[in-house]
């Protein structure tokens, strides 16, 4: 699938650049309304889940700045910040971007949704499922961080004496072989997500 955002960055498609730096740019959205802009990484990354954390933080900062610039320049009455993550979610290009939409009183645009009523027991079930997944993910992240620190420590350390080795907590050597396949699993899972989210509806 051709990516028009990459096309704009490579100069194959005419682009209108409001701000740019080494990793990101703010462009006029030529698929939107007047004054609508998008914030995108230069590198082709399809979805939110594929954005590395440092880049995501930079994009976050740009989002707040861009919303303020749009608001002040165009004298809007408000702005919407929208991320459509996945082609079925309305993502128009297979390239992650954040949209800033200028809004005016009575502009006729309707972006809200219909509120649904869901039985309490279903909400409770969703609550349990989602909380569990978030807990698992945060635990995994913690483990990865811990592992990185332990690895760094081991690199810096002199080879341990037998005595030290005994006093090492269990978290060090024996668990490592067990954790390896988990990492591979995670990578393939992410790829799977990218595939699912960039599937044409």
């Amino acid at each position, binding site marked *: 699938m051709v990516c028009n955002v990459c096309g704009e960055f490579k100069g194959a498609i005419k682009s209108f650049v409001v701000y740019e730096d080494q990793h990101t740019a703010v462009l006029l959205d030529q698929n939107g309304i007047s004054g609508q802009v998008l914030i995108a990484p230069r590198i082709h990354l399809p979805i939110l889940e594929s954005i590395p954390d440092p880049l995501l933080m930079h994009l976050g900062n740009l989002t707040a700045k861009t919303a303020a610039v749009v608001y002040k320049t165009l004298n809007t009455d*408000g702005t919407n910040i929208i991320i459509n993550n996945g082609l079925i979610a309305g993502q128009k290009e297979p390239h992650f971007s954040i949209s800033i939409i200028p809004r005016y009183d009575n502009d006729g645009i309707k972006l809200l949704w219909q509120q649904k009523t869901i039985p309490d027991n279903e909400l409770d079930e969703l609550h349990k499922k989602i909380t569990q997944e978030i807990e698992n993910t945060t635990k995994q992240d913690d483990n990865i961080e811990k592992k990185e620190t332990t690895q760094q420590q081991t690199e810096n350390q002199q080879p341990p004496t037998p005595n030290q080795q005994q006093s090492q907590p269990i978290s060090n050597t024996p668990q490592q072989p067990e954790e390896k396949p988990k990492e591979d699993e995670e990578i393939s899972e992410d790829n799977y997500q990218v595939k699912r989210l960039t599937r044409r509806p």
Partner: protein
Amino acid sequence: MDEPCLFCNIANKKAQARIVYEDDVCIAFLDPKPATPGHLILIPKKHVLIFPQLEKDEIIHIFATLKLLSNSLLKSLKLEGTSIFIANGIAAEQHATHLLIHIIPRQENDGINLTTNKVEFNDQEYTELTEKLKEKWYAMFVENSKEQ
């Protein structure tokens, strides 16, 4: 006394909500009247009205949390997409006086539209608009950072 804010009350645990995630900066809970099942609302604990009022470190923190929440929804509900929606101002369809960030699970043909329709403009109009935005960007952020 200030008007009590429902969302500050949720953050302070004075009002009930189905909380799925919480830390020092923000709290996320299930929207009781969702667009789709699993619809989450993420709020900063601090009372702010709109997104640009957040401090830089809060914005960074909230974006990292958004990635965590979206990813967790994708996995736990086996979704093919999520939408993240922020309204700054009543004109942008904001109904609360506290900044709300919606994370909405998406399915094919779910009847939700969070995109705008393309409006045609010519190159000259686009160029003029870009220049105006660039100028303001420079005035607001580049000149300021030089002074600091």
